[in-house]
């Protein structure tokens, strides 16, 4: 289990780099490094479905974020560190970690989940659905409603992007 800790510490280091560096392209690439570390974590936690999906979604989201930063010349963040914001952030982090520690202690220990519903799904997936991949059987047969909701969320985000960016195209077309 030591490799889980090591990769998680590397992800934290990469996310601090993504946060602090001034050049936007470098920070987007550091975000890509965090996403790839997450893919490795999913593989080590025995979730291959999630690893494949996280890998390709990470590539696509880095492409979209790079599109936001290319061709944009902008001044670097010249904001000096304000003591007020920093102190508030530290106090908030302290309070959050205190209550999180109280909550995490009451969870079942790592490696022994309770799995009341999971056992039912594993025992009956092959007879009731005929599928061998239990995660596919869950998202498309036992819990198909959630997949319907997710399809409608994707549809809404596509409509949103087209609606936000279409007016810009029309205005540019008229201006030219």
């Amino acid at each position, binding site marked *: 289990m030591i490799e889980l800790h090591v990769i998680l510490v590397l992800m934290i280091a990469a996310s601090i780099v993504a946060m602090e560096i001034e050049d936007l392209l470098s920070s987007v690439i550091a975000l890509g490094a965090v996403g790839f570390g997450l893919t490795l974590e999913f593989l080590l936690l025995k979730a291959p479905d*999630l690893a494949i999906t996280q890998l390709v979604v990470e590539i696509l989201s880095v492409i979209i974020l790079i599109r*936001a930063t290319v061709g944009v010349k902008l001044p670097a963040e010249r904001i000096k560190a304000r003591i007020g914001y920093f102190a508030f952030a530290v106090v908030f982090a302290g309070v959050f970690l205190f209550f999180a520690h109280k909550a995490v202690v009451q969870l079942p220990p790592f490696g022994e989940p309770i799995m009341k519903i999971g056992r039912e799904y594993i025992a009956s997936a092959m007879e009731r659905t005929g599928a061998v991949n239990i995660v596919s059987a869950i998202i498309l047969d036992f819990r198909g409603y959630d997949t319907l909701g997710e399809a409608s969320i994707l549809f809404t985000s596509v409509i*949103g992007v087209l609606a936000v960016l279409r007016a810009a195209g029309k205005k540019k077309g008229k201006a030219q």
Partner: protein
Amino acid sequence: MSLYLLCLILFLIGIYCLLVKKNLVKKIIGFGIAEYAVNLFFILLGYRAGGEAPILDKHEALTNIVDPLPQALILTSIVIGLGVTALMVAIVLRIYDKYRTFDINEIKKLKG
């Protein structure tokens, strides 16, 4: 136990980046980091020590399988996160189109 706390530290880094930074693209990056931390936390909850991946085998019956239910929920959440990131990037591009800057202090001063 220490894994849960490290995961929550990653979440705190994302929230800090979302709150404190002035650049809009940095805020989107902070949002992405917080979303990675939440997805990882769910899968950490479902791991079973010595368990196998939730795919049945033809030649032997697997007895120790990790919990498949959090994996099904987070599969949906990863693709939804991509849709939300794309919409945020579209809105930020429109803001840049109008105000010519990514800095939110400047955007608050320039109106219309």
